[in-house]
């Protein structure tokens, strides 16, 4: 089954909800429909299903416009799983799944056949819902109910599943269970999946392609890696995100922040000496407090290097796993010179990055206000036989301000600014 959406526009009265949306879905693909609330995702699904009537020839199924097909024909091609389903009426889970056989009846008047019964049992066993077959549908939990609805979709023997945020009311376990089930159906039976998803990371993990809608326009369509980049997400959702890779699945992993680069609100600059991932919270809190932040020297691949890159902080970089070179050190000192404050964060110090501690000493010598963050004496972050601790002691005795944590650091700097 090949689905083509061709120049699809749709309006509710004067309100244009879909604007010239065009994309193709190949057989067996797993497509995530994403976009902010009100961007037209559900409307798009309803147009595909012909529940809302799209303009002629804007939704084509194997080249045939869906307008010309009856709802029964469409129901043999598509099975829909809504966000949640409820009914006050006393249907058993079995009854609900049996409804998936409606589009396959031989005539309007035909009752269920043994073939239908077999299809229902198979679908329920597949989705692990056979054990609730006789239970009341409305007495099941949200996750159980959603699995029953998926069983109904399976019993429908569709070529494609259309899902509208199938996991939105489920807990984490339920979410993964349902998504894994859908993925299995997709992989094993080659059922095409088109699913509205809100959770970017769920989408990145399960989808082959993502269609990103914004205000009715199709903003981007392609692989998760191509679509889920910070710039696109910023322009569609208006939030800053950090995009990393999930260390175990290699899927794109998106971390949203309300605003990342708040930008300096006052001209004050802070140079942060960090490494090994210790610096991330410092960078963020200094940016949030309105300071201009720079950092260095950081090895490429160091997590603080990635933090700084994602926050777009000027950084002096060194080759991966290499000791800080003389030239990098000089560049670092140059950034120190441009700053008013220098913060020495409690990062682990080894022979390769001892120069970053020495940079603090130079800063003090240049008359910069140096703040030393030391949670406790001898926390074991000195891997150079006490030389780093020694420098720190000297710094403090020569007027650097010792603080015990990040909050104190911010307070100290703010006092210095005022």
């Amino acid at each position, binding site marked *: 089954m090949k689905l083509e959406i061709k120049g699809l526009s749709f309006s509710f009265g004067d309100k244009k909800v879909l604007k010239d949306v065009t994309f193709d879905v190949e057989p067996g693909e797993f497509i995530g429909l994403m976009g902010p609330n009100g961007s037209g995702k559900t409307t798009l699904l*309803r147009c595909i*299903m012909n*529940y809302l009537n799209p303009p002629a020839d804007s939704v084509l199924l194997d080249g045939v416009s869906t307008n010309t097909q*009856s*709802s*029964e*024909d*469409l*129901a*043999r091609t*598509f*099975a*829909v799983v*809504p966000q949640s*389903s409820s*009914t*006050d*009426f*006393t*249907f*058993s889970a*079995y*009854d*609900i799944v*049996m*409804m*998936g056989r*409606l*589009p396959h*009846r031989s005539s*309007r*008047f035909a*009752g269920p056949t*043994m073939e239908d*019964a077999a299809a229902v*049992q198979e679908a329920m066993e597949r989705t692990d819902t*056979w*054990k609730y*077959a*006789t*239970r*009341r549908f409305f*007495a099941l939990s949200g996750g159980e109910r959603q699995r029953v609805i998926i069983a109904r979709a399976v019993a*429908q023997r569709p070529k494609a599943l259309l899902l509208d945020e199938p996991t939105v009311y489920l807990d984490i376990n339920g979410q993964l269970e349902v998504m894994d089930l859908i993925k299995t159906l997709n992989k094993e039976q080659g059922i095409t999946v088109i699913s509205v998803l809100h959770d970017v990371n769920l989408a990145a993990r399960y989808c082959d392609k993502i269609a990103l809608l914004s205000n009715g326009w199709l903003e981007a369509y392609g692989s998760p890696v191509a679509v889920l980049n910070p710039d696109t997400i910023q322009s569609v959702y208006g939030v800053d995100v950090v995009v990393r890779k999930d260390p175990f699945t290699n899927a794109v992993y998106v971390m949203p922040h309300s605003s990342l680069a708040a930008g300096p609100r006052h001209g004050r600059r802070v140079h942060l000496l960090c490494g090994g991932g210790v610096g991330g919270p410092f960078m963020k809190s200094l940016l949030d407090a309105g300071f201009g932040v720079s950092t260095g020297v950081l090895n490429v691949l160091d997590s603080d290097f990635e933090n700084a890159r994602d926050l777009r902080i000027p950084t002096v970089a060194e080759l991966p796993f290499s000791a800080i070179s003389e030239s990098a050190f000089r560049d670092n000192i140059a950034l120190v010179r441009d700053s008013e404050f220098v913060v020495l964060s409690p990062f682990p110090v080894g022979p390769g990055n001892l120069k970053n501690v020495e940079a603090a000493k130079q800063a003090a010598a240049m008359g910069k206000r140096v703040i030393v963050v030391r949670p406790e004496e001898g926390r074991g972050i000195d891997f150079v036989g006490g030389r780093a601790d020694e420098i720190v002691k000297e710094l403090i005795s020569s007027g650097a301000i010792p603080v015990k944590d990040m909050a104190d650091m911010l307070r100290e700097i703010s006092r210095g600014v005022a």
Partner: protein
Amino acid sequence: MSLSRPDTEDEGVDFAKVMRRRLVWLVLLVVGLVASAFVAVLVGTLGPIGPGDPEYISFEEAFGAIFHGQGDLPDYYANVFWEVRIPRVLLAAAVGAALACAGTAMQAVFRNPMADPFIVGVSSGASLGAVVASLTGLASIAVLGALMTPTLAFASALLTVFVVYYLGVVGGKVYVNTLLLSGVAVAAFLGAMVSLLIYFAGQQYHRIIFWMLGSLSMASWTAVIVVVLAAVLGIVLVYISSRDLNALLLGEETAHNLGVDAEGLKTLMLVVAAVMTAAAVAFTGVIGFVGLIIPHMLRLVVGADHRILVPAATLSGAIFLIWADTVARAVIAPTELPVGIITALCGGPFFLYLLRRNRILGDAL
């Protein structure tokens, strides 16, 4: 589908067992209906069962009058059975069946437990027609007069439904919530007009009130034929839409997604229910409660699947109204109570009992 809880978790569903259970229910109800009708015919002031006052006759004599025509009894004995009692029981059965079936369909279309056959204004429309017929004297015209009230009631009921339906349809789509509220508003408006007419009706008001509470005392073979025709047609159409109605209970979008033509189904059900109800009400006045309570009761007993619910509710509606009418004419014989009072008095408490019991059991029946 009505299912009992399996003893072990993986017992699953025994398809054949479910079908067998349904068949047993239907057979029981059919037997119950025939037996009820038979007994009800024998109950009355002239009959072997019941008040027996002023005239008691034995079973033998009653059967003689029914099956052999005259026998050695006076002529009017046979007439009492063939012209009064039997059409009355048949009419009760047909009206009860029509109301229960229409109520089942309306509850599915509106997905609202308070829906009944009168939800789109049938009762208020019919009442207005009947009141007008009485007050204008149309009902008193010789020969034609007896049919004037039903005709006017039927016509004005359908007209009302048409107006309500028109108000509830926007751009070819039937919006059930709009329809429901239009029904309420139109019913209130027509109800006020009926009240106004009653206020000025003078001595006639007693007759009108009696009509509005519903009574089978106007039963005739004409009424039986008309109502049976409408009921059979309606019941067949509702029954063959059973699986579609099941899907509709999950919402219109879900029904559409399962391949059901939801708009067509809603319109068909509204028309069918309106015609059935209007035909019934035209001859009997407004008999409340049957169309609301019987579908609920049977849903609690046989489950929500319309393939069993529609026939079961229809048969039960017929049985229920036969007995309600029998009680109505027996309790204060030789006069009678409006049957609508009996339906509410009996049905209410029993329904509450079922409702409570079911909440406590809390499993699929």
